[in-house]
């Protein structure tokens, strides 16, 4: 009996074209578009040597010339002012420096971006060092040699620690999978509607049949869960193996997270279906809207939104199932430990159990005097 109902519900889910489009085809298309559009996004703000021109460098002296070339920041060309102006207007250089004396310069740029700011900072820094050296030598002329040695010495004052080379665009893909998990709530809601006699004609027919209501519900909700779990796996496999988005190393953890996400989603939908006495369209519409809003908060439309919520309203991140799934994937990808991953999975499982318990207590022993 259980297996027959399971089979029928599974077949009927396979035949729902609209559901298939929004839970499978749409995420596949969207992930492909994300991949095509964001593949070069992590190249923004990468440092490349800044192209500059210097005019009248002889006025600044050899010290400035050496500092400029040893800084490792610039590709330097020496030329006259007119030529430099022409190159700047054509966009071939970021700026040009007009040397007036050993410690007096004028910088010409076209905009105020980081490249131009670095040129200015170098010049400011050179002037500052020059001024410091003058003051120290004035106070103790014998230290001149030491000061010059110290200034010309290539010495770093800050120890750079190894930092992760994370690509934040992966959040878009993780949020997308989390959205697919949570869209399973629409299936959970539909399954509950299909056993409540005052909600649909199909349910009225089921209620007069001699089969146990809970058994029917368990079979249909299991079919919905298995269906949605496979859909989520297809989307995840496509993103991982075809688009080659990094998910960390462990496949088992990815499967567990997808299962926990689908369980939380299905049970949330079932609970809303049982608690809210409104037409199916209203309930589904509300669930889709809430899912999209939760997806927005977890970074589907703007990747930093996840971090903004995590930093400013951490409680909201913990009650948002989409954010929990997304954060689970992020933990697998970026952290060396699994503490945060297991915290996310545990909260999702706890949510699923809580929603299921509420659904059970609402649905049990429900009788209809008249429909």
């Amino acid at each position, binding site marked *: 009996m259980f297996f027959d109902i399971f089979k029928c519900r599974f077949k009927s889910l396979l035949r729902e074209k*609209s559901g298939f489009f*929004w839970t499978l085809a*749409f995420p596949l298309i969207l992930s492909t*578009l994300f991949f*095509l*559009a*964001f*593949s070069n996004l992590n190249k*923004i*703000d*990468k*440092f490349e040597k800044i192209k500059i021109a210097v005019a009248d460098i002889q006025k600044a002296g050899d010290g400035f010339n050496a500092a400029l070339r040893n800084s490792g*920041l610039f590709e330097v060309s020496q030329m006259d002012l007119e030529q430099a102006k022409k190159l700047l*207007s054509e966009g071939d250089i970021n700026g040009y420096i007009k040397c007036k004396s050993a410690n007096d*310069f*004028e*910088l*010409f740029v*076209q*905009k*105020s*971006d*980081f490249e*131009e700011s*670095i040129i*200015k*900072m170098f*010049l*400011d*820094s050179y*002037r*500052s060092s020059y*001024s*410091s050296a003058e*003051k*120290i030598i004035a*106070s*103790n002329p014998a*230290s001149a040699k*030491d*000061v010059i040695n*110290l*200034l010309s010495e290539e*010495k*770093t*004052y*800050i*120890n*750079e*620690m190894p*930092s*992760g*080379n*994370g690509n*934040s665009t992966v959040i878009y893909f993780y949020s997308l999978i989390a959205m697919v998990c949570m869209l399973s709530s629409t299936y959970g809601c539909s399954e509950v509607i299909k056993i409540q006699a005052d909600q649909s004609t199909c349910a009225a027919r089921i209620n007069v049949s001699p089969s146990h209501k809970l058994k029917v519900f368990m079979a249909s909700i299991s079919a919905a869960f298995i269906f949605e779990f496979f859909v989520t796996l297809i989307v995840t496999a496509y993103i991982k193996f075809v688009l080659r988005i990094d998910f960390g190393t462990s496949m088992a953890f990815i499967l567990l997270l997808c299962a926990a996400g689908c369980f939380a989603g299905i049970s949330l939908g079932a609970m809303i279906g049982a608690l809210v006495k409104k037409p199916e369209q209203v309930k589904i519409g509300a669930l889709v809207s809430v899912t999209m809003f939760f997806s927005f908060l977890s970074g589907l439309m703007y990747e*930093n939104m*996840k*971090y903004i919520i995590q*930093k400013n309203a951490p409680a909201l991140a913990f009650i948002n199932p989409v954010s929990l799934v997304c954060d689970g994937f992020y933990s697998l990808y*970026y952290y060396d430990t699994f503490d945060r991953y297991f915290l996310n999975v545990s909260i999702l499982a706890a949510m699923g159990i809580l929603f299921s318990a509420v659904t059970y207590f609402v649905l049990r022993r429900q009788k209809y005097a008249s429909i």
Partner: protein
Amino acid sequence: MQAFKLYFKIFKRSAFFMVLLYLLIFGLIVALFALNIKSSSDMGFEAQRSRIAVVDNDNSKFSKAFASYINENSQPVELGTGEQAIKDALFFNDADYIIIIPKGFGEDFLKDGNARPQSYSLPNSIRAVYAQRMAESYLKLFDLYIKSGNFSFEQAKENVGADLALKTKTSIVSINKSDTGSLKRTVDYVAYAITCMVILSVSLTMLAIEKGDAKKRNLASPISASKIGLQVFLGNAVVSLICCGMIILLVIAIFREDFFNIYGAWYSLNILIYTLVCLGMSFLIGNLVPKNAVNAVCNVIALGGSFLGGAFVPQSLLSETVKNIAVIDPIFWFVKANNEILSISTFNLKTLSPALYCMLVQLLFAALFFSAAMLVIKYKRTKS
């Protein structure tokens, strides 16, 4: 003009709400975008500021002075506690550079200049390079004064502050062009909004007219089929132009005087031409796709076209493969035309020809869609 009037009655019932919804969404996006626009009157050079977080575990006089200098010359970022907070801040670009000052740093640095704070940053980030150089120059000057042996801590601090306050005169070279970059990015976004608005309004209204009672009534009326077709097409054109007009008005409302120049005029022409492409596309969809699939088709075309064509992500950041595929996407040519307009300094036929070429390609797309729609209509009539 009964069919024309009928068109608007049906449009009001079937698509008006959706058009308003998309207009509202677009309005919100543009308004948010406008919040980040710098005033175009501010033409002087303004140095950038990296986002730097300083975690001072020392709290000595020197570490406080160092942290204070960094905070004054950057956008200070507050970090949570623990290693994960550091990793998260770097991953989500909340901080470009994180400096951890260890306990005892101040005392050790002032003793021999060998103590080092630690830094975390994303590899090879230009913002981090900028931040690092800034922090290093402070420590280097302090080291210089302390090692000379003639200056007390307070004197060294004062002198370093005075030396670092020396600034180089920096001038922005005028290139005789208005700052229309922000306006251009907004106009790029128009492609998504206008595609959704025109496809939904035209396709849904046409499908409602072509099905059920409305179609039967039209067939029974004494007006010829060609006249009805013409009036329905006129309705489509008017609705599309209204969508185009509403979008342009919205952009004007946000950018005001920045829009009223030669660039704004050319952007408007480009939007109008792209609206014709959408009209042709919607006309084809309305004749080809069943009603329950219009929403899905609209989303796929608008989102797909916008991502591929560079409406959401600048075309300069798209890979060559994507750009090669995108030549069959009208939004690619719409955005390319905007790019060409933005790059013009002096407007004449020669400088305008690349933009005009992109507009011509869009017109060809429109003609292609109309022709395909006519073929579909003819095929349907022959079949019925």
